[in-house]
């Protein structure tokens, strides 16, 4: 049972959240300009690191806001929580 610090609601059990996979995978600005391979990569390929991972969560049973988390995929330690739209390097101000 992960303990996730929602930037708006504070620490809550994992069961209040939904997972959203890798963070910072933006919808391509012009999908038509992509090759099929590039579009396929956007659709299906996500990083799968063993270690720190910037990922998205949404506080579905709380404020319903999406935000980003840096979590270690082995220890499950969460080292940063930051708002959607921010980049990991911006995270110092909102570190959990």
């Amino acid at each position, binding site marked *: 049972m992960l303990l996730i610090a929602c930037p708006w609601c504070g620490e809550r059990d994992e069961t209040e959240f939904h997972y959203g996979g890798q963070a910072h995978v933006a919808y391509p600005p012009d999908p*038509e300009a992509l090759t099929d391979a590039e579009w396929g990569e956007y*659709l299906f390929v996500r990083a799968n690191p063993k270690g720190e991972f910037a990922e998205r969560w949404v506080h579905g049973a709380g404020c319903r806001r999406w935000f980003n988390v840096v979590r270690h995929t082995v220890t499950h330690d969460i080292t940063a929580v930051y708002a959607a*739209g921010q980049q990991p390097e911006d995270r110092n101000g909102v570190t959990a």
Partner: protein
Amino acid sequence: MSSRLPTGGRVDRSAPLRFTFDGVEYPGLSGDTLASALIANGVLTVGPSLYRERPRGVVTAGVDDPHALVQLERPQNEPMQLATTVELCDGLVATGLQGRGRLEEEPDEALFDKTYLHTDVLVVGAGPAGLAAALAAGRSGARVVLVDDQPELGGALLGGREEIDGRPGPAWVAEVRAELETQPETRVLTRATAIGYHDRNYVLVAERRPDRPGGGGRLWHLRARQVVLATGAHERPLVFAGNDRPGVMAAAAVRTYLGRYAVLPGRRAVVFTTGDSAYATALELAAAGAVVPALVDTRPEPPAALVEAARAAGIEVLAGSAVVGTEGEERLTGVRVSALTDDGQLTGAVQELACDLLAVSGGWSPAVHLWSMARGTVRYDEALAAFVPDRAAQDVRTAGSARGRHDLAGCLTEGLTAGAEAATAAGFPVEVPATPSCTGDEPPAAPRPVWLVPGESGDPSTWRDHFVDTQRDATVADVHRAVRAGMRSVEHIKRYTTIGTAHDQGKSCGVAAIGVIAQLLGARSPGEVGTTTYRGPYVPVSFALLAGRERGPLFDPVRTTPVHPWHVRRGAVFENVGQWHRPRYYPRPGEDMDAAVLRECRAAREGVAMMDASTLGKIDVIGPDAGVFLDRLYTNGFAKLPVGSARYGVMCRADGMVFDDGVTVRLAPDHYYLTTTTGNAAAVLDWMEEWLQTEWPELRVSCTSVTEQWTTVAVVGPRSREVLAALAPGLDVSNEAFPFMTVRHTELANGLPARICRISFSGELSYEVNVAGWYGLALWEAVLAYGAHAGITPYGTETMHVLRAEKGYPIVGQDTDGTVTPQDLGMSWIVARHKDFVGRRSFARADTSRVDRKHLVGLLPVDRAELLPEGAQLVAPGTDVTAVPAESLGHVTSSYRSAALGRTFALALVRGGRDRIGDTVLAPLPDGRTVAATVTEPVLFDPKGTRRDG
């Protein structure tokens, strides 16, 4: 003959109990466990072993017993209970088990609960170290939870003779308990076993509640800022020939039976030890009246003071020796003792000693199970001959014998320190209290571990009575065979031999087994071999405890609409749609489903019918950019939809596959009212919010689920206009004033404000009347009343499905399966060409743009009465379906009897289906028949749409 001592112990002699074991009734006392009561009655054998059917008895006095398994029959039936942990109660009935329990199919009324609790400091274990930790932490004012698996606090102090502050151990325990009770933020849980330790100090505690009906327990979910593990240590068995015989017990357990339960497990006892702690057992046995002919110590030079004390009690100390064999059948009658050389070989003559009890101490293994579950590492301490906690991975400390500290003063000091430090770390600074003075349990001298006592003859390959895991009947010979087969990893040897996988999960035998393995692998010490992984739960817990109250109706919530009571009264047959209970049809007396549905369909097509459509997902999409937003999600356009109008839309996932569909109404320039399929309502809202927040935060839009806020009643059929006219007298219901795909707001005849949409999922003239949810039943009854003169007929989901299928309208999730594009459904018309939307790019990929994809088509069985089963496969004519694999063309997605068509029909996904219109396909059926059907356009009824205006 009773083995109960005349005085002493924590049992209540004023509260005699009766219990039955293996069909024989015995007396016991309140405070007994089943095991102590059995021993008091001279019963030491619990059941035969799993495979070899050797008699096996009680070994320990707690959760680490290797095989004292019983089937509890009263007070409730429960398999595989340890006699050493079952609290005796009056009327208890149990039988011994051969390593395998029975599940009984009888009603179980027990209620199991769950409680969720946050705490600053959690202390696990209420022996001296844990009590000290809780005391110190509690004095800080922090929230403290202390849990212990026994009914009473105190741990080993309950059965020992140690003194603290000049008073007996139990008196100190009582004093601590009294202080804890005065601390307002301290909570003490007894009969509560910590079973699991998860990330972020999430600890699960299983509480037994024997006083509750059926013994329904409670599972505590604790989230602690800091944890102190004072879980104690398990005494290890020793591996020698015949070490499994009833009468061979753990030395500390013998002491517990003497001191805590006032029972004497044997009258003539030999003690066999590798360290100091068993001397106390020997002395207390002698003091209780047992003859102790010898204490066998593996160490050549045991501490002089201990030897002196033993001799003073008339106990001969056989130093540098080991028990090498046992005698007896159902019960131990004697042991064989030999001297050991420095390298652990037998030397000299074997001495035989008659005895009925052998108290064994193979050393102590800290109970690192929870520590390891918390991902803490362990290291092998050569001096202690034990795996001890090393690096913590969470905010957790250990204290006392859980970290290899075995003297009382040390345990108290460590406990006080750990408790104070934990509280301080949790934000409640507090001094470490001074350690009270104590006597009777001095720091032990170094043990001499002996992992494998050699047999008197043969070699390890023949030592088939040297038991390593008694419950699995696994022996040194088995380990030897595994090593000889090439196994090198302890994990492989564990699997080869099944050691450590039984009910006790190797609590007592685990480290002893590692010692044997190390020896047979030629490793220098067990540390070189390492442990296997400790996994939860620490003790077995019932499925029912983990399920808690989420059973029966509470397994998953049932959602019903405000009209539901009427549906029930009317005798509707319900179906589960997502979490909703929806009426499927409303049979009249004597009607089966087919008859009811044909009647309901006829009413909708020929007169007027009504349906509770409230389960449809409803979302308010509000904001200046709402139109732009919907344009990006739907395949078709909504930004230019006039206010007051409605439009059907399809949503795709980014991969281009249909995700949901529904009608959206524009109520105001900045307000859309969107409907979804019943099962997808939550997913669609999630989807919209995800895109809004993560991709297009600049859009000024908010989305709100209003599914429960509106009750929706569909009024359908050629006569629906006249019903609506009566229901909504203030509304001009003419086709010109209220055209198709528009919305009106009005007050109904009964005064309810209503939002009425003229939309149709049946091809008929049709209205969806929406009122505030809490007026739902009133609306329904009003529609019934105003439609009564026209014979208005309620219908359910089955009729809805028939009506829409006759019109070729797909149901997302039934006629689609996550691999279907809008084009596959024949809906190219709804896919905008000049805007981007989610999924659009995917249509251009090689596979998605194939022309021979599976298309949604209609099917007309050649035999007009033949109803194709939904899900039936389709093949081309001439296909030999017995020559597998035979090629499938697709499958039937929907199939019905149609009153309007006077025949059966179906919808199907068929490869290249639109190019097969007019062709015949075959459906091979489970009964062996093959049914022919003609492929048609999906719209079979009123293809020109002449009926929608009434």
